[in-house]
């Protein structure tokens, strides 16, 4: 490798790293509480819900139609908007609102929440809990909630919505570029050093450089995977938007003009769940929205199903069931780019291998933080050397000059 190419790689490494380091530090630090958010919630907040009734194992679930009917009796004149069985608990959430229009109007008034929910026991169809009424005094936010919420927003988009998410996506690309260029430089620096050497008997800068190389080499693959999947995750809004204006629009086109089916004349919700489960074999049905829902059809139930394994668990397949007849209209697997997105999620979150995997994720994250910090130290040290040289040129004598590393000469 010629000096010129090497210098180019060095410049790429320096600038990509410098630009993304601050944001990477934010992401690495905020990622830690996010990683353990489940454990943190359980430890500091918990929930005050009454415990579930103990029933003999294998007790079948009650029909969802019973719960929907109960909800309608509790709030006559309102519409049911969604039915969502819980993933982990034997509970079903039935969401209601005065009307679709009321829900839409909520967007204009941040203080108005016309939607509400009722939580049923999935096996007995007994009401367990209801959302607090919208005029109830708001519960003070817990510290845990504030900290986790802030960490999540900072991590995802720096409190800046879609532009923030895209910006962080660019930082992710820069991070990957800095990892690649760093790997090239590693090959040059380590030419005469056995792997894992940390020189402590020479200039402090060399110790930092060796640490940077060792820690970077040990976490390289993990950082590449988590960095790249993080970038893909930041694209989720545009990717889902793309799907919505292409495939989804195409599928819903024939029904777009039809009048909304009245909630009094709908086919069975339970039957729609059963139909969807058959239409997407191997998938779990996790939710149903009623005809008229935003991004839905005026005459269909939209059912959301997803795979049952960690790999396929985030691969959603929406199913349309005609709400007038109960007949299956179709199951629509996601396009390749959304499948790619959904598969890259677990690899970013580290949530698919139990607590030990999360702990490893956290340790690797801490090592990456150390790599970032040592990189900044190296950059700052080199700047000092450059400044000292300028000072000397001006006739000053900086007292504590350390040996300029020979390799550094070639790089400058």
């Amino acid at each position: 490798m010629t000096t010129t190419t090497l210098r180019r790689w060095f410049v790429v490494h320096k600038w990509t790293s410098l630009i993304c380091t601050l944001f990477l530090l934010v992401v690495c630090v905020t990622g830690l509480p996010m990683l353990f958010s489940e454990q943190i919630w359980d430890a500091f907040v918990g929930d005050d819900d009454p415990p579930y009734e103990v029933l003999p194992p294998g007790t079948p679930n009650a029909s969802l139609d019973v719960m929907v009917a109960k909800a309608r009796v509790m709030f006559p004149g309102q519409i049911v908007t969604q039915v969502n069985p819980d993933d982990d608990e034997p509970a079903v959430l039935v969401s209601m609102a005065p009307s679709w229009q009321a829900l839409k109007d909520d967007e204009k008034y941040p203080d108005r929440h016309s939607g509400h929910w009722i939580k049923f026991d999935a096996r007995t169809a007994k009401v367990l809990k209801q959302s607090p009424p919208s005029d109830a005094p708001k519960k003070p936010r817990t510290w845990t909630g504030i900290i986790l919420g802030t960490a999540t927003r900072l991590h995802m988009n720096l409190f800046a919505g879609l532009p923030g998410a895209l910006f962080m996506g660019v930082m992710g690309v820069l991070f990957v570029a800095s990892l690649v260029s760093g790997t090239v430089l590693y090959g040059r620096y380590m030419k005469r050093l056995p792997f894992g050497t940390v020189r402590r008997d020479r200039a402090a800068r060399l110790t930092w450089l060796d640490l940077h190389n060792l820690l970077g080499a040990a976490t390289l693959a993990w950082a590449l995977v988590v960095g790249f999947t993080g970038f893909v995750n930041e694209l989720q809004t545009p990717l889902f938007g793309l799907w919505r204006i292409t495939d989804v629009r195409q599928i819903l086109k024939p029904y777009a003009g039809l009048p909304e089916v009245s909630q009094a004349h709908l086919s069975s919700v339970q039957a729609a769940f059963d139909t969807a489960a058959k239409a997407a074999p191997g998938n779990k049905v996790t939710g149903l929205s009623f005809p008229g829902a935003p991004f839905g059809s005026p005459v269909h139930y939209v059912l959301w199903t997803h795979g049952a394994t960690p790999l396929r668990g985030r691969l959603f397949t929406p199913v349309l069931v005609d709400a007038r007849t109960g007949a299956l209209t179709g199951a629509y697997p996601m396009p390749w780019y959304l499948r790619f997105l959904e598969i890259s999620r677990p690899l970013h979150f580290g949530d698919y291998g139990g607590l030990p995997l999360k702990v490893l994720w956290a340790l690797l994250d801490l090592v990456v933080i150390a790599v970032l910090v040592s990189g900044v130290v190296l950059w700052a040290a080199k700047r000092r050397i450059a400044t000292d040289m300028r000072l000397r040129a001006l006739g000053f004598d900086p007292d504590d000059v350390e040996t300029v590393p020979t390799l550094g000469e070639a790089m400058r």
Partner: protein
Amino acid sequence: MNAAPPMPPPSSSPSRTPVAVWPWPIALSLLTVFGLLSALLGQHGIWLALSWTSLSIPLVVMFACLVRARRRTPLSNGGQS
């Protein structure tokens, strides 16, 4: 994983002769990738344990190198176990 070289011999000063740069980083990267995928594709039991083990190895190797560097005093004396 038979590409993994033996632990490099301890040396207090960098040798003048070129060394094989890539075997260790490649071995650690392969272990990491294997660990990431085995939990994702295998999902339970032995695959999870394999995932935890193989993801730990890069950290353990790194830690061992740090300990070794620390044990060797900054001065020349290479008191190695």
